């Protein structure tokens, strides 16, 4: 059974239930149960109309749950009226579901969990494993999130930017459990891009594809990080790169630049270089200037300083870095890298070791301590 296909039907089924008058939280629970039943029943008894089957079963689950709850008589009256039979109407409320699950009243972790369950069709257990928390904790996080948005009107258009931030989080912080969250983030962003015509949605999709295309080359067989400059570019997925570049170009042509398009443009310039030496750092610096204008983010200015170091030489990079707050994450790592390029290996080794102590990511910490060790070993010879 194609689980991705099954899960792609989730938002459509959920919105049918909500349009029939089910409240969001109860409808969402019913759809989860229907999905579980589908996984059980479909392999031996596949339905002809998959979505119709899910709607029927989810609606029945919803009615069962509602009837079981004697305290909710009033709602029972509502659901006793037979809903419109047959396949769901062509109106697509999936977009509304994205807005609801990324509602600004939710914390980032709640929005992520709710999006993965209600839009992505993942089970609570899968989401819990992906984020390395107990299933009971994740179940509470999701039901709390549902309570938080229970008063939100379902028919109101939300802000695309909040949805994009949630999808970016899913993409950027996925662990490798039994669900590939990176692939899931791409699927959900692609599905969103099919429904809303917005250059930043396209920009985020392009950004994801361009990074995903390099995934195989990013880690060595032992799991260590391979820096961009040292990656085997033959292992980059050229088809995915081509798709990302095409989506980005179409978005940029509309002349409504946003931060995801600018980030994707930088990723595209890296993807475009056949060797690290051919990288167009001058253009990359220009894109970082755009990004800094759009986001005013100190992290962007830090990345820009590193790019300046490549475009105009390490001294220029160090000068740009000196203008920034030294307590920024990765500031020390950037300084170490630029000092090494400048030939000051003793300073670089010291700073790499210091950066390793400050790192917040495991693979990055290991990478930085290896850099320090490499320079120290070389100097002692």
């Amino acid at each position, binding site marked *: 059974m194609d689980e991705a296909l099954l899960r792609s039907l989730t938002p459509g089924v959920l919105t049918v239930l909500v349009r029939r008058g089910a409240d969001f939280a109860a409808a969402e629970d019913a759809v989860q149960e229907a999905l579980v039943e589908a996984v059980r029943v479909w392999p031996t008894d596949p339905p002809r109309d998959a979505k119709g089957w899910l709607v029927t079963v989810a609606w029945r689950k919803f009615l069962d749950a509602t009837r079981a709850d004697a305290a909710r008589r009033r709602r029972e009256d509502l659901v006793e009226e037979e809903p419109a039979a047959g396949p769901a109407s062509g109106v697509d409320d999936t977009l509304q579901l994205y807005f609801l699950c990324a509602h600004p009243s939710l*914390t*980032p*972790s*709640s929005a*992520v*969990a709710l999006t993965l369950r209600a839009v992505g069709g993942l089970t609570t257990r899968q989401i819990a494993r992906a*984020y*390395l*928390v*107990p299933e*009971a*904790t*994740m179940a*509470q*996080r*999701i039901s*709390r999130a549902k309570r938080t948005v229970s008063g939100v009107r379902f028919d109101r258009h939300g802000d695309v930017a909040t949805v994009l931030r949630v999808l970016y*989080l899913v*993409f*950027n*912080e*996925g*662990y*490798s459990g039994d669900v590939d969250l*990176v692939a899931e983030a791409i699927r959900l962003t692609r599905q969103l891009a099919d429904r809303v015509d917005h250059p930043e949605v396209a920009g985020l999709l392009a*950004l994801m594809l361009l*990074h*995903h295309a*390099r995934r195989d080359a*990013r880690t060595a067989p032992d799991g260590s*990080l391979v*820096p*961009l*400059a040292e990656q085997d570019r033959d292992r980059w997925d050229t088809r995915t790169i081509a798709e990302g570049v095409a989506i980005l170009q179409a978005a940029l042509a509309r002349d409504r630049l946003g931060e995801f398009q600018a*980030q994707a443009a*930088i*990723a595209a310039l*890296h993807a475009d270089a056949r060797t690290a030496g051919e990288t167009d750092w001058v253009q990359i610096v220009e894109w970082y200037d755009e990004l800094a204008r759009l986001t005013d983010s100190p*992290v962007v200015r*830090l*990345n820009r300083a*590193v790019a300046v170091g490549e475009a105009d030489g390490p001294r220029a990079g160090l000068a740009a870095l000196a203008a920034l707050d030294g307590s920024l994450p*990765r500031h020390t*790592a*950037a300084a170490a*890298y630029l000092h090494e390029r400048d030939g000051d290996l003793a300073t670089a080794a010291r700073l790499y070791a210091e950066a390793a102590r400050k*790192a*917040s*990511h*495991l*693979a*990055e*910490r290991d*990478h930085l301590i290896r850099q320090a060790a490499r320079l120290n070993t070389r100097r002692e010879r």
Partner: protein
Amino acid sequence: MAKYLLLKHYRGAPDPVNNVPMDRWTPEEISAHIQYMNDFAARLEKTGEFVDGQALAPEGQWVRYDGEGRPPVTDGPFAETKDLIAGWMIIDVDSHDRAVELAGELSAAPGAGGRPIHEWLEVRPFLTAAPTVTECLGHG
């Protein structure tokens, strides 16, 4: 979304404000303390922030490899070891501020006289998996 370890020490932390050893509390005060800890964990599960909580026996051993074919060498326990971990709670929260807020609440667990212990807890972030997008520094 980041995990933090809230570490509780038998020894090695600065003295708490309400600094009366547990064996000088009344049994009711001990029960109240344990109840507070359990309620705290249950509340964090409800907010979707609880990952794990464990207590450790105070006495342990030091163990090290002693070469091919030889049993490991053991030593201790050492009464003079400065730092002694009593237990931990692991939380999964949206921000560092939230981790500090929760540690503060945990430190308010009641002790002697039913008053908060004001115990010092250590808050340590987990090292996480590297993010997917790491354009910076040529990683990526």
